[in-house]
């Protein structure tokens, strides 16, 4: 029985509280969104102004000052590339774990998950030194590789969980029809799990987009993503919140949209199935 849907009883307390909490939690974001359209004076005004004349001057200034588009492009490239590569690497592995399971594959999956939990700081120094030695500091390439590897276990896990939903008999029929594993994957499994793969991709991109740790430490003006841009913008332009808000809003807007669509996958993915 779907919880709550059969009863139409109106609960005024719950309604009020539910809305209060929702508005309260998202208030900071909305407040920032408002500030993005204010002039600096309006943004800094005390008492805070809720009514004001909106302006787009911040967005204009932002693209000049902070080299916004360059960093936005980096964010897009890194998120996209790292996720795509991760899916390409993960799909065959997830296929094996889903349809040719054994004690070994189970242990493998657990090992992969344990890597996910290792603090990034543990790898910071070695990676940093390696990148310096290879002259890869502040390159998109390095960031793509590192982001891809960081998210790979999670992506394998999510693809695995979606693949498992396909009845094994369909792949067996494919086998009998002469399809070897890679062809089963390409012609049968992937078309049947496209929605799941899309959600996984979406989640991967969100995580890559928001990724700040590696970005701050191994990239700078050349390959820095928006996460870095905001961080450095904060230090240099700390007093100009209207502009900061504009830059911030522009940085998070796409992900907010993605995020709204993927909330269920979030639970499934990040808890590794421990919560249904």
């Amino acid at each position, binding site marked *: 029985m779907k919880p709550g849907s059969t009863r139409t009883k109106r609960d005024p307390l719950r309604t009020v509280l539910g809305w209060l909490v929702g508005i309260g939690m998202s208030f900071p974001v909305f407040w920032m969104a408002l500030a993005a359209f204010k002039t600096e004076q309006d943004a800094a005004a005390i008492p805070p102004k809720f009514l004001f004349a909106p302006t787009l001057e911040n967005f204009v200034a932002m693209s000049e000052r902070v080299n916004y588009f360059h960093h936005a492009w980096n964010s897009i490239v890194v998120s996209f590339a790292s996720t795509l590569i991760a899916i390409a690497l993960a799909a065959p592995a997830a296929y094996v774990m889903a349809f040719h399971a054994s004690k070994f594959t189970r242990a493998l999956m657990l090992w992969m998950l344990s890597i996910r939990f290792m603090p990034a700081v543990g790898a910071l120094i070695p990676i940093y030194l390696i990148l310096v030695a290879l002259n890869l500091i502040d390159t998109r390439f390095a960031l793509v590789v590192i982001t891809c590897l960081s998210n790979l276990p999670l992506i394998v896990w999510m693809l695995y969980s979606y693949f498992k939903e396909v009845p094994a*008999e*369909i792949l*067996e*029929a494919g086998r*009998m*029809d*002469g*399809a070897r594993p890679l062809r089963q994957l390409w012609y049968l499994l992937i*078309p*049947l799990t496209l929605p799941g793969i899309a959600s996984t991709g979406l989640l991967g991109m969100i995580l890559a987009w928001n990724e700040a740790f590696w970005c701050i430490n191994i990239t700078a003006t050349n390959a820095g993503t928006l996460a870095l841009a905001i961080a450095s913008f904060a230090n240099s332009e700390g007093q100009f919140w209207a502009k900061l808000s504009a830059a911030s809003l522009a940085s998070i807007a796409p992900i907010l949209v993605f995020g709204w669509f993927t909330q269920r996958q979030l639970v499934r993915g990040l808890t590794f199935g421990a919560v249904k």
Partner: protein
Amino acid sequence: MTALALKNIHKQYGPVVAMKGIDLQVQPEEFIVLVGPSGCGKSTLLRMIAGLEDITSGELYIDNVLMNDVEADARGLAMVFQSYALYPHMTVADNMGFALKMAGVPKEERRQKVLAAAKILQLEKLLDRTPRQLSGGQRQRVAIGRAIVRRPKIFLFDEPLSNLDASLRVQMRIELAELHRKLKATMIYVTHDQTEAMTMADRIVVLRDGVIEQVGSPLELYNRPANTFVAGFIGSPKMNLLSAEVVEQKEGTAQMRIGESSFLTLPAHAGLAQGRTLTVGVRPEKLQQDAAGSISGVVAVVEHLGGETLCYVDIAPGIRLTVKLEAMSTVQVGDRTRLALEPGAALLFDADGKAMH
């Protein structure tokens, strides 16, 4: 040359033995049915033939070529799954043509072959539909069509009719039998339904607990079952298996007591020593109402099926005989009745359940 040969096939899952000592030879164009209760290993055996399961030990030959280590996608077999396992995202035409596509057959040739197979199964109008848009019976046909298109050496069927409703099942049974005649193909068919086995098979393989109990033609199994299990499994309604005590043996006949005041008279047999107890098998259709019959009992339940009447007669406390009477029978619950057995229709089984001939 045999189409399929199994030599001493063993299957183990870790310490658990699932099948042992399986020996079987299948001739080309034969229709073989593997039948048995759930858990007997019939599906496992089929899957081992298909290559979807490993063979722990023993040898599998297809067309006299050893196939143990050959991958499922390279054995030249086609399988129809119980759930049909159609590709949900492809049209009927693509479903049927998939194997050809995997083999690299060019598009035009694929189309023609698919059309030819579709005609055999009356699927031409459905070629552009997806499985979701088909009924159960139609899906089943597509599954069969998918197998036909490949012209495999052997067709494998894994309980294909069990998901259909009763009337469709009867119709499909006939169609499958006709298909077999038309295609002249070797077919191995798994089912738990002994009616399907009896009506469709050239030969039946009865399995129980991973072991072959008997192999033979339907009539062989019906008339000369090798043990009580096969005797009770084949034939509907189920054969009456009674514990009988030899009362006396003289003048070429033996008299056996099967109930308080019920007796059977059988031809003398070496194994019938006075006082010995063994099992006697009597088919419901071989019993008739006979005022002079040697079996006496009280009618407990009557089932009128229209074309025939089934009658359950208690001949002793806890011993109930199933009797098949003709449709017009006027027998009533509570009647005292006497039954006679058709001469020579009794089967004898020893204490281990093995047939005594």
